[in-house]
């Protein structure tokens, strides 16, 4: 099979000593980043991106993706031991993970969480390995209308599936596009939204925006709570681990169901959070003791963790095949690709097969290394949260400033980062989701050129998006998702259940 051959080729690249070392470093850094408050996958990758400028692209992407896996593992540690979800998709893990830890079964909960993460990721990686090539080949036939339709679908899924207030999701998307439009219009050569200022000509770097919105904004929110971490001392004993594994084997149905939910939700943007909650809900519905959920059952840790990791891996699929990131972290990696001089999208499979297959193979090695390392060094990683807050806070701000400056050696970017930090803080409080803003800022130029080219092809008629069957189907799906917040309450009213008001943010 051609797919397997490619994969073996990828493994030859991923298991060179240097790339394995990159994977180990990535996992360690990523886990630390995942444990630290205010740093998550997206801004951790953004801050460390400048360090990869001088590396070969394949090693660089292995380092960054391993940071991502590490951050996912790290998020589970804080959720279980400290009841602090490091990432939104870890919220469901706290529901049963923290009660378990309080009962002194933290070791079991962590073993379950890491194992589930690994299983979920492995399931999704296998699917990615087999779907990547056909999807890329299909995408090669896409023209501007199809690409614009996919981008439309990307953003509509934030509105239709994102949860929260759909109007505010829409506002976030539009602000992202407006920020992306600032600067030189490459088609007509005119300056847009610069208002005569030379500084604005460069536009806004989304990496700076990510560091500000997610990094600083999160720090502001954390200090506001005046957090003092009171956690449960972790310890994973080997015998306990084996016993947990024996118990976990009985939950194979939950594993399979959650992994499938995770993969299906994950390759659509913003999918990881709904996937984790959905999978938790399903596990409870199918359980023989649904009433025990929330009091500390292992199955309640297994379900969301499996789904979240499967979704996290699945988010890489559209990034490498279509050049459209499925999550903010994938968006930052996409930015990295552009900086290393690679054009993301289906052509990568033809032009840089060593990059694509090295990356896919490194997902296997990275997750194996990851699960072994976190199981072995949980106490060390959890100890990070015992560092006093007055040391962590300025340290994170300092590192954010360095990351923002290094993007393009500009002090102005550091100021932008501060401004984005304040914006992130305000938006987070007012329930405006941040992920769509970042994705719109990343995809703004691509989406605009796809739209323009399509309109030029059709002489200005929007009907071009319904001409080819593929683009018609995708556009239609996007329109349905856009309309979902309007239709949803109507359907519920017809069925007689009251529509709930806006919930909390999920991204």
């Amino acid at each position, binding site marked *: 099979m051609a797919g397997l051959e490619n994969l073996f080729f990828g493994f030859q690249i991923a298991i060179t000593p240097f790339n394995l070392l990159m994977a180990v470093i990535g996992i360690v850094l990523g886990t630390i980043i995942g444990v630290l408050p205010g740093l998550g996958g997206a801004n951790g990758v953004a801050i460390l991106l400048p360090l990869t400028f001088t590396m070969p692209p394949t090693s660089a992407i292995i380092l960054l993706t391993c940071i991502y896996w590490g951050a996912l593992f790290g998020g589970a540690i804080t959720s279980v031991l400290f009841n602090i979800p490091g990432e939104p998709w870890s919220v469901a893990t706290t529901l049963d993970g923290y009660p378990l830890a309080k009962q002194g079964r933290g070791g079991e909960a962590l073993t379950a969480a890491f194992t589930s993460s690994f299983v979920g990721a492995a399931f999704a990686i296998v699917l990615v390995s087999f779907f990547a090539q056909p999807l890329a080949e299909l995408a090669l036939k896409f023209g501007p209308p199809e690409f614009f339709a996919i981008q439309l679908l990307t953003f509509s899924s934030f509105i239709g599936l994102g949860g929260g207030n759909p109007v505010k999701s829409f506002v976030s998307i539009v602000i992202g596009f*407006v920020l992306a439009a600032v600067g030189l219009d490459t088609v*007509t050569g005119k300056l847009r939204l610069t208002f005569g200022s030379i500084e604005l000509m460069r536009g806004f770097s989304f990496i700076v925006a990510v560091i500000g919105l997610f990094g600083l904004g999160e720090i502001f929110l954390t200090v506001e709570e005046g957090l003092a971490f009171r956690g449960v001392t972790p310890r994973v004993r080997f015998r306990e681990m084996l016993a947990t594994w024996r118990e976990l084997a009985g939950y194979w149905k939950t594993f399979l169901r959650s992994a499938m939910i995770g993969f299906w939700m994950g390759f659509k943007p913003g999918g990881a959070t709904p996937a984790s909650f959905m999978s938790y809900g399903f596990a409870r519905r199918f359980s023989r003791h649904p009433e025990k959920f929330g009091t500390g059952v292992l199955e309640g840790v297994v379900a969301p963790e499996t789904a979240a990791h499967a979704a996290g891996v699945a988010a890489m699929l559209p990034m490498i095949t279509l050049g459209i990131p499925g999550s903010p972290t994938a968006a930052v990696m996409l930015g990295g690709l552009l900086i290393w001089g690679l054009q993301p999208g289906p052509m990568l499979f033809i032009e840089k097969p060593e990059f694509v297959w090295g990356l896919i193979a490194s997902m296997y090695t990275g997750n194996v290394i990851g699960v072994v390392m976190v199981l072995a060094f949980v106490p060390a990683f959890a100890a990070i949260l015992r560092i006093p807050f007055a040391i962590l806070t300025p340290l994170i701000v300092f590192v954010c400033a360095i990351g923002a400056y290094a993007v393009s050696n500009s*002090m102005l970017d550091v100021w932008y980062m501060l401004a984005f930090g304040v914006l992130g803080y305000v938006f987070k409080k007012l329930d405006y989701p941040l992920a769509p803003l970042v994705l719109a800022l990343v995809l703004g130029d691509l989406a605009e050129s796809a739209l323009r080219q399509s309109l*030029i092809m059709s002489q200005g008629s929007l009907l071009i998006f319904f001409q080819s069957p593929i683009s018609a189907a995708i556009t239609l799906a996007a329109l349905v998702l856009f309309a979902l917040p309007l239709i949803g309450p109507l359907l519920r009213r017809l069925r007689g259940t009251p529509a709930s008001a806006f919930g909390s943010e999920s991204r």
Partner: protein
Amino acid sequence: MRKADTVCAIILLIGAAVVAGEGLRLGIGWSTDGPQSGFLVFYLGLALGLASAVVLGQAILLTDAPLYRKPFVGAGQLTPVVKVAVPAAAMVLLTYFVGLYVAGALYLGVYMRWIGRHSWALTVLLAVAIPTVTFLIFEVWFLVSMPKGPLEAYLGY
């Protein structure tokens, strides 16, 4: 929270007007090479305006949405945020004169001593060690250049 939401929506409305105006200035018609450059900008402004108007409407009408049940910032919540943000801005400003590493060291030191009330020994140790390690990682190992000041110049970098 409702007041903050209202104010934010009004600011967004003004921003939308500015964006749409810029779009109109650039032209939203059809030129020989496709849509004019103001085309997308104008419609983005329009969309932002409409959406912010809806948010504003929600803020006025849906008085008891769960979001509005808690205040935008509770009593005593803003102070710790300001204590992080203002010194951070000061650090960025200082960077112009002494470079990012020295400014970072001062920021770390001030915050640890002032907010954390850590001992002088620990404060000085970490305030020197953290920027030094960062310096080694970025400047020496990965050759990523940061703004530097007189101290780094004195040391030969």
